[in-house]
């Protein structure tokens, strides 16, 4: 009962949730997002592969722990999460999961104020604990080829009777899809889904889908979703294409610069939106081998005949031939190159993205986006990011972003061009399985202010 009360207390202070994906994992692993997530666009409920990967990603792993002073570590941790070794239930028919994120940050921007003595000073928003996300997920396998999955975004008003309480305009409170494997490499999904647009990122402050003139109204907010359907074709490991048709209620809410106009079409949005994405995912083997020398393999045969070391010994002795060489994981380089388009009526959003990642944990990716709409409101955004996994549980991350928006300025503003640059450096630290601590330093340089601050995110997930 106490746990339930604490959960309710936590939930009632929460903003609505965002589903996040972690692009670097796809680049490093050389796998598409669908390998680790039930949602093929990434984010949300993890597949068994995704769950087991993240469950093994920790500085202290109790699953593979050796005895500590004679006691298994599970007991040392009070049996905490003992038995939570999988997110699959009932022979994989049902899968459950969640994401909970708390963020410590100064929310807002600095403002110039005048105190009672007439002195100008700069006021910084107070530090706040921001409940960024609380989202439960579920997936049910109806048949081998048909599944249904979804998630719900809990907001402050959810436990006060108002189920839907989105933070951003255009944000949905839930997503749900019926997904079918129609043929090898061919998947069809329909429901309340997010179209495949560029790269799906794991930080809602990323500007690539945003608007430099209004950061509280991103063009494609976290958890943006519409009723629609999408076909995904992945015939070969290095090529993937998606195409879909969607309703536009949420898009209209986001883009509604002209509320005076009566209908959606008069605001430059059609009743349907169309989207598509094409991605090449090449992989290159740079080195390393999985050959073992035990048992007289090809490698040891070569050494048998020809090799003498400087001391006159040769290695053609029984001990060397019999000694196995441990398999060496191949060094892989994985890449992305892709384009996406999404539009309705007078609005369009185009994205181009590219990335490189190595199986050693280093990754780079870049993305650009361009949008335009009827009311002379144009955006260009760019992102460059890099990650370096020093250990699987300790990842250095950095990114640089730039956003430019041109729109009709309000009276009093000289021009209608808005620019914002953002630099973020941080660490993804997994001290225990299913827990992430993410300290970061964020520097925002907008037209009218510069603001740098340290932030910390606590992420609990399953």
């Amino acid at each position, binding site marked *: 009962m106490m746990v339930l009360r604490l959960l309710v207390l936590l939930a009632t202070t929460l903003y609505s949730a965002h589903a996040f994906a972690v692009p670097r994992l796809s680049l490093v692993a050389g796998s598409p997002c669908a390998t680790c997530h039930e949602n093929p666009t990434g984010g949300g409920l993890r597949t068994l592969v995704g769950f087991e990967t993240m469950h093994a990603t920790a500085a202290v792993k109790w699953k593979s722990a050796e005895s500590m002073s004679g006691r298994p570590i599970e007991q040392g941790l009070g049996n905490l999460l003992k038995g939570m070794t999988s997110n699959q239930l009932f022979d994989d028919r049902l899968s459950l999961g969640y994401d909970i994120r708390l963020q410590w940050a100064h929310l807002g921007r600095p403002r110039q104020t005048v105190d009672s003595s007439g002195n100008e000073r700069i006021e910084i928003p107070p530090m706040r604990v921001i409940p960024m996300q609380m989202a439960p997920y579920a997936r049910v396998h109806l048949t081998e080829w048909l599944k249904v999955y979804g998630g719900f975004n809990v907001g402050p008003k959810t436990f006060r009777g108002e189920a839907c309480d989105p933070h951003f305009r255009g944000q949905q409170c839930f997503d749900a899809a019926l997904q079918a494997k129609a043929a090898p490499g061919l998947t069809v999904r329909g429901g309340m889904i997010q179209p495949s647009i560029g790269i799906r990122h794991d930080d809602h402050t990323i500007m690539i889908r945003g608007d430099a003139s*209004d950061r509280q*109204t991103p063009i494609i907010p976290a958890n943006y979703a519409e009723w629609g359907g999408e076909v995904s074709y992945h015939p070969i490991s290095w090529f993937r294409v998606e195409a879909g048709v969607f309703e536009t209620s949420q898009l209209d809410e986001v883009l509604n610069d002209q*509320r005076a106009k009566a209908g959606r079409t008069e605001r430059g949005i059609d009743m349907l939106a169309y989207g598509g994405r094409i991605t090449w995912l090449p992989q290159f083997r740079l080195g390393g081998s999985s050959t073992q020398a035990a048992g007289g393999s090809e490698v040891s045969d070569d050494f048998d005949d020809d090799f003498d070391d400087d001391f006159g010994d040769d290695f053609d002795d029984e001990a060397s031939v019999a000694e196995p060489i441990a398999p060496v994981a191949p060094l892989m380089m994985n890449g992305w190159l892709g384009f996406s388009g999404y539009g309705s009526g007078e609005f369009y959003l185009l994205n181009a993205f590219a990335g490189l990642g190595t199986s050693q944990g280093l990754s780079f990716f870049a993305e650009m986006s361009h949008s335009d709409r009827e009311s002379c409101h144009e955006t260009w955004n760019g992102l460059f990011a890099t990650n370096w996994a020093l250990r699987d549980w300790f990842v250095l991350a950095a990114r640089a972003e730039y956003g430019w928006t041109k729109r009709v300025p309000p*009276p*009093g503003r000289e021009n209608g061009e808005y620019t914002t640059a953002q630099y973020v450096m941080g660490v993804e630290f997994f001290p225990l399985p299913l827990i992430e601590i993410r*300290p970061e330093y964020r520097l925002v340089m907008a037209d009218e202010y510069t603001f740098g601050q340290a932030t910390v995110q606590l992420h609990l997930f399953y």
Partner: protein
Amino acid sequence: MKKRESLPVLGSAEISRRTLLSGVARGGCALALMQFGCTVAEVTCDDARNITFSIEPGSPFAVLEEVGEMLAVDAGCLKLVLIRRSEEEIIALDRICPHAFCEMSPGQSGVWVQGTGDAEYLECTCHTSRFAADGSKISGPTPTGVDSFPVSFNPDTGRWLVEIESAAGNQG
């Protein structure tokens, strides 16, 4: 001799519990120091100036001819929304909601509801914070009201004046 306890499987190497806890403590202290020492804040926009305008057809302020209409106006660092409250009155409020800093302007996250008493308000549609005509908080998650600024009409010149320079802003 007391057996040294060690935490198994820390990445690829064993470390002691003391080392791990020490590292976490140091990291936490570093983070706390960053909070106090590394916060950078600079405002680069111009100081706010008084705004004078006339409501003429074809001007940016023409929308204020109709009662109930709103217009976003920038005055240097200050972001205002002008609202035609009645035939005789225009009010000027800070259009940045103190809750999550949404812009309460037409076409973004602001809606003006005509009425009397608490039935008349400026609403931030992000999270339904509501503000009275004087900027005071009516309801919602906003921690405070918003600043309001005096607006007067000069019948001789036919121009309206929003006083910003001399007014520190009357926070509701």
